[in-house]
């Protein structure tokens, strides 16, 4: 296969999987998961191949593998895709989350065909967003994700699922309405009536227009990224969702928001960004602190993880508005890192623990002596917690360091609050970890508890999935260069889409 088609092939692999699953006769429903796994692995394989084929030579155009197929003549819309380092990192993330998500939903027996078809639809949409170079295509893929989320949560979810699903959907739709508004206005005002990102990025939109279009678009995307105070969908949605979907939501769907904010809102409207930078930094910092503080007070383990997502995505947004290469690359790395770590946390809480204990109440879980009963789950949760705290040697550390480093330059005052947020993150993670797995009274009551809580052992797919995620967060923690080099190449190259942006601020 020609290398230009590798990124696009990820989309195809996902939708091919959907088609195959839909064609599957009902009685072979249990085969759906195998098809899904195959499709996810293929997509991941393509993503890896595309990543490896990425040319980082100093003069190389960061935007590679461009595919341009005509779609609609008027209004001029093309099926235009292409990937730079940022896209590729996120494609890789999507591949990993898709694969492990399937592994963690190996036990879905209720309507498996529908479940996996919807799951892969989301994956396909996400792949699409991360490589669209045409705003229309980007928006189409962005919206494809919304409706399957609703059904996955409301059909296969748990606590308060219909409420959670509807709330999440309404927030998403509100966000995408803002984006659509910005999109329409951009289209109308663009001199060539084009929606091609490359053309638009080179266009200087009038300042007055950018002044309102930037916040509209940025906010529209950022709602999906869980920006405070429009984050409330995230905890309820995450909690209501089935495990694989929580993983998807935290792992990649929230990244759609931050990616869109970067790739569309910030790239197209640098002047608007400059004006609104401070308010966004305030909101991002507030999200960091608020997420951490609220997580500190939760009784439900999944809510803790849900709020930690707000906290981590706050870092992403803060990193984005630092507008220097260090902060921006940190933000992208944090997207990747939180995708993996958040996915891992949700996998432990939702699949390994909740599916067995049928409760997520921290106090109740504490009484079950989980460290003894489910040692692998305990081990995984410890690793995930450490990674989530931003401890060195895990991927979160380098990401957060880079963001803080970027923020020192721009927002030294917020930095203090952000760092405070880090410390509170440690506190709430430790609290959840201790109370759930190592409650103080556990050792005393060892003996009689062991008999009363016999859980199904952790299955092979779960182990595999957890191992993959742990290996990735650890591997990237030790060798962040693997991801950072392509990311930096995409930011620093003069041909980069974001060049405009970084240059504009440097002036």
């Amino acid at each position, binding site marked *: 296969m020609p290398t230009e088609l590798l990124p696009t092939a990820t989309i195809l692999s996902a939708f091919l999987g959907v088609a195959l699953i839909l064609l599957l006769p009902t009685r072979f429903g249990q085969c759906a998961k195998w098809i899904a796994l195959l499709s996810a692995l293929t997509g991941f394989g393509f993503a890896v191949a595309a990543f490896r084929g990425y040319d980082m030579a100093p003069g190389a155009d960061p935007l590679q593998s461009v595919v341009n197929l005509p*779609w*609609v*003549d*008027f*209004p001029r819309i093309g099926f235009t895709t292409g990937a730079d380092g940022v896209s590729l990192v996120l494609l890789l993330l999507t591949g990993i989350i898709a694969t492990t998500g399937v592994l963690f939903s190996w036990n879905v027996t209720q309507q498996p065909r*529908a479940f996996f078809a919807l799951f892969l639809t989301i994956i396909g949409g996400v792949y699409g967003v991360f490589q669209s170079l045409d705003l*229309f295509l980007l*928006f*189409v*893929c962005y*919206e*494809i994700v*919304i*409706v399957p989320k*609703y*059904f996955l949560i*409301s*059909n296969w979810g748990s606590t308060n699922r*219909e409420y959670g699903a*509807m709330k999440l*959907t*309404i927030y998403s*739709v*509100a966000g*995408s*309405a803002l984006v*659509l*508004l910005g999109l*329409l*206005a951009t*289209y*109308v*005002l663009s001199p060539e*009536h084009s929606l091609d990102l490359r053309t638009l990025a080179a266009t200087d939109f*009038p300042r007055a*227009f950018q002044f309102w279009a930037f916040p509209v678009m940025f906010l529209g995307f950022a709602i999906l990224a869980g920006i405070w105070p429009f984050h409330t969908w995230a905890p309820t949605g995450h909690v209501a969702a089935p495990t694989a979907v929580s993983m998807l939501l935290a792992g990649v769907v929230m990244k759609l928001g931050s990616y869109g904010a970067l790739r569309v809102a910030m790239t197209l409207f640098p002047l608007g960004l400059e004006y609104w930078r401070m308010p966004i930094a305030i909101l991002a910092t507030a999200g960091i602190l608020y997420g951490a503080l609220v997580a500190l007070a939760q009784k439900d383990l999944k809510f803790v993880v849900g709020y930690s997502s707000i906290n981590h995505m706050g870092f992403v947004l803060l990193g984005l508005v630092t507008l220097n290469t260090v902060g921006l690359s940190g933000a992208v790395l944090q997207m990747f890192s939180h995708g993996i770590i958040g996915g891992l946390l949700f996998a432990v809480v939702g699949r390994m623990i909740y599916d067995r204990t049928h409760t997520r109440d921290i106090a109740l879980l504490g009484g079950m002596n989980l460290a003894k009963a489910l040692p692998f789950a305990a081990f995984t949760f410890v690793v995930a917690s450490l990674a989530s705290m931003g401890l060195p040697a895990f991927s979160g550390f380098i990401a957060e360091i880079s963001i803080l480093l970027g923020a020192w330059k721009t927002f030294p005052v917020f930095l203090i609050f952000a760092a405070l947020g880090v410390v509170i993150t440690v506190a709430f993670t430790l609290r959840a970890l201790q109370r759930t797995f190592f409650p103080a009274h556990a050792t005393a009551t060892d003996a009689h508890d062991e008999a009363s809580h016999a859980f199904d052992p952790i299955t092979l797919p779960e182990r595999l999935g957890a191992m993959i995620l742990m290996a990735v967060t650890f591997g990237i923690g030790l060798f962040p260069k693997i991801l950072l080099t392509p990311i930096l190449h995409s930011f620093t190259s003069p041909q980069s889409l974001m060049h405009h942006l970084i240059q504009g601020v440097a002036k």
Partner: protein
Amino acid sequence: MNTALALLKFLAPESILAETALVVLIAGLFKATAQKRGVLLSLTLMGGFAAGALLLLFPQNANIAHGMVVLDPLTRLVKLAILGLSLIAAIFAAGSTVREHFAEYLGLILFSTIGMMLLAGTEDLLMIFIGLEMTSIPLYILTGYLKRSSTSAEAALKYFLVGGVSAAFLLFGLSLIYGVTGSTSIADLAQTPRATLLDPLFIAGVVMAMVGFGFKVAAVPFHLWAPDVYEGAPTPSAALIASGSKVAGFLILAKLLTFGFAKGTGSAAWGFLQPGWLPLLAIVGAASVVVGNLAALSQSNVKRILAYSAIAQSGYMLLGLTAAGPIGVSSVIFYVIVYALTTLGAFGVVSLVEQRRGGSQLHHFEGLHKSAPGLALCMGVFMISLAGIPPLAGFFGKFYLFAGALGSVSSQYSGNLGLLWLIIVAVAFNAVSLYYYLIVLKHVFVIQPAAEPAPASPHCATSAFVGFLALAVFALGLYPPALLAPIQYAVAAVTEAAAQH
């Protein structure tokens, strides 16, 4: 002489339909065939196909009696669409709750279709009125067709009274316009000097005509009949009202406003309000979007939800017309055809559910995904397309519609997105609309019924065509040019012709 012959030639499709209607009616008189719905339906379809073939065969351009009957690529395309929609409605009828006097039912559908096609193929005010009446009168009867159902009767009476009043408004308005300009031809109207356009009598005429059309397309505040009619009418009738008649209505409205009153647009831009039909349209459209979407939120009957959704969708289309140019026309035509396909499909599903479960309340849809997964999937496609979620056709339609409207004013006041306020309203309430469409889908997919309904074999042809419509909506979403390119070509041709005139 020439005119008469030409008329016969160019109205051949309509004539074929009329003859088919007569044949079907006659077939209904015989006991041997009266109860055989399949036979009657086949007759109808044969006639329909013949008419379609004739439409495709005949020359593309003709103008008889100074615009009385016009044939151009646009009318041909719209006529084909109307014909197709009506025939599918007829097929749905075969699998619906309409069981008595089926031949007459089909005949009425055909008669109404003729009216719609005449309406689509004219550029003359008088013919517009005649076409509207020819469309409406059979529809009144179709609405009241379930003579043992009081809601059906009530709906028919309401529809009839409101329709009558609206016809009166329209006629009065048209006559005022004629009185001022001295012509009933749209082409002549386009040549009217500006001074005439400011004549209060003329303005009163335009307003009254718009009120009349407002009733027809169920725009707020002339929408009150719609929910009751959609709910009370037999489902295929409601489908026809919502699909074919809407397509014809919007085509003629678009032509009349965009080409006929091209000089009297005024402006609806924020802060640049100028009298004309644009501000009127903008206000009516925005009100329809707001009221339709909000009222739909609290409905419990799927047909009523579709009715309010129809009101809202009319609003979007009226907003699309504010583009006041060829883009506006082509976007509205594209949108209305896609909308008609979608809503027709949705009514097809409702009709099947009604037939099997005895009602169209939300709870009748519970567990549909288990008993009829294919049908449920189609319903999903229709609802999501109506909500304007990609990759379905509804999204592209809205995008094109909004982009056209938004772009129209910026060319006049450069850099100023004058109609932004309208688009904000439309986009915002489009987001709201997803809620009630999802509520429908929630009953279809999520909520489990208290008792498992007895499985019943669905009507084959109806199911097949529901599937076909879903596929069409999906395919048009993936590749809009399939429909968009012909429309744009046709509109361009018409615009060019008008410019040469």
